[in-house]
């Protein structure tokens, strides 16, 4: 199994996000939460994460294109995995194992519905396996609905500004990843979709976060045209 390292530091700083994550952590008594919004093409912006494990779990799903929040978006319904060790790998072959490795015991995802559309997903995790009871599921669903409009507005505003403060716990659009995609596009003379797939594959096989690979590409320490395949 591929090991995906997680840098966990002793001090956890709170991100300058819209303050949307914390209420989920306290109301549902989980270990952490992250919130991402998605548009109709699957483009995403990550609003906040309550700690580094939650942030890495969210980033893993971005990198792998697999995991509970993709499932919640697709089904437009809550996704519940109370025991990741028992069922994670069968539901999400790559994410399941990687999430266990970073210290997740249970994962849950709730779509942020607004009228007929879902504008994003709230990801929750617990370090230990645990259930959410029916009342907690209802609470999380209704809180996710209420977070939908502020989260979408926050992401729209942030994407519209030429310079955005992207932080580790609130990476927003991950601009560096898209810049790196453009550089790989030019290096390999391929489409943006193909270039992004190459970056993803490189991150996966090297066992490093995609954000680190992107930084190396943008910093010109890594040039995909020098690879022979």
């Amino acid at each position, binding site marked *: 199994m591929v090991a995906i390292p997680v840098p966990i530091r002793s001090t956890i700083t709170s991100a300058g996000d819209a303050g949307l994550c914390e209420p989920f952590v306290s109301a549902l008594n989980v270990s952490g939460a992250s919130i991402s919004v998605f548009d109709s093409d699957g483009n995403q912006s990550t609003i906040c994460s309550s700690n580094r494990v939650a942030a890495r779990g969210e980033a893993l799903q971005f990198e792998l294109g697999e995991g509970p929040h993709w499932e919640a978006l697709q089904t437009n319904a809550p996704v519940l995995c109370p025991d990741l060790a028992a069922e994670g790998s069968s539901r999400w072959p790559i994410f399941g194992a990687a999430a266990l490795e970073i210290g997740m015991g249970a994962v849950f995802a709730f779509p942020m519905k*607004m009228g007929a559309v879902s504008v994003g997903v709230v990801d929750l995790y617990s370090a230990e396996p645990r259930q959410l009871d029916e009342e907690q599921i209802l609470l999380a669903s209704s809180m996710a609905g209420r977070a939908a409009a502020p989260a979408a507005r926050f992401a*729209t505003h942030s994407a519209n500004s030429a310079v955005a403060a992207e932080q580790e716990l609130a990476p927003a659009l991950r601009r560096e990843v898209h810049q790196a995609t453009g550089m790989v596009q030019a290096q390999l003379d391929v489409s943006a979709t193909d270039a992004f797939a190459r970056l993803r594959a490189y991150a996966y096989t090297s066992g490093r976060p995609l954000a680190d690979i992107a930084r190396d590409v943008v910093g010109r320490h890594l040039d995909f045209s020098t690879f022979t395949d």
Partner: protein
Amino acid sequence: MDSTARETRITTAFVAVADTLTTDFDIVDLLHTLVVQCTEIVATTAGGLMLVDGDGTLQLMTSTSEAADLVELMQLAASEGPCIDCFTTGQAVSVPNIEHETSRWPAFRKAALEGGFHSAHATPLKLRGTVIGTMNLFGVNATALSERDAAVAQALADVATIGILQERLVREGNILAEQLHAALDSRIVIEQAKGMIAHSLSVDMDEAFGVLRTHARNNNLTIRDVADSISNRRLSVRRTPEGISIVSTSGGVNRQA
């Protein structure tokens, strides 16, 4: 109306006002159907429906007739009378004999009597404590609405309220989703194009953005459009002895690695 006809009528009215999620849903049409059906079912003479606007003022949305005296009465009712009281309290207000209301609502009383109306019944449109408007029924006779009729009016108003709020949420959700899509899509395309330019010209990201912006300004295009053309290789960026050149690749190039 005999009781069977009445029940059929009520059922039809419920179906009509609940039908808000169809593609050609028209809110004014729904409100009009509601007030017309209700007026007939509870055997009143005329009716009108008011919704609160963004400023908190009641606006007349529709009435059973466009007769000037009814419209004027409704407009007046937005500031004085059973309708505004119903809106403020969230409770139905029944006025079996308008003629008696000399002290409470003198202006409303005068206008109603001039229009030939002697009774009024205002039903709130509310959901979980939020009042979004009132449905107002007027009768030529000085009679109170029966409890049963008042309950039918309230039930129809409740169904319509859910429909109105649902439609608002759907509309707002769609607008937010569109704005989100436009913002994310533009930004991602711009960042990708910056990466392509940075690599092609060996410049940093700020300079790459400058190249995009200059070309957009000089050609009266949006930065997003220029970025999209570069990303899809309809435009190519090169450094030439004369400086930076951005040229159209005729017909577009679709190369695969």
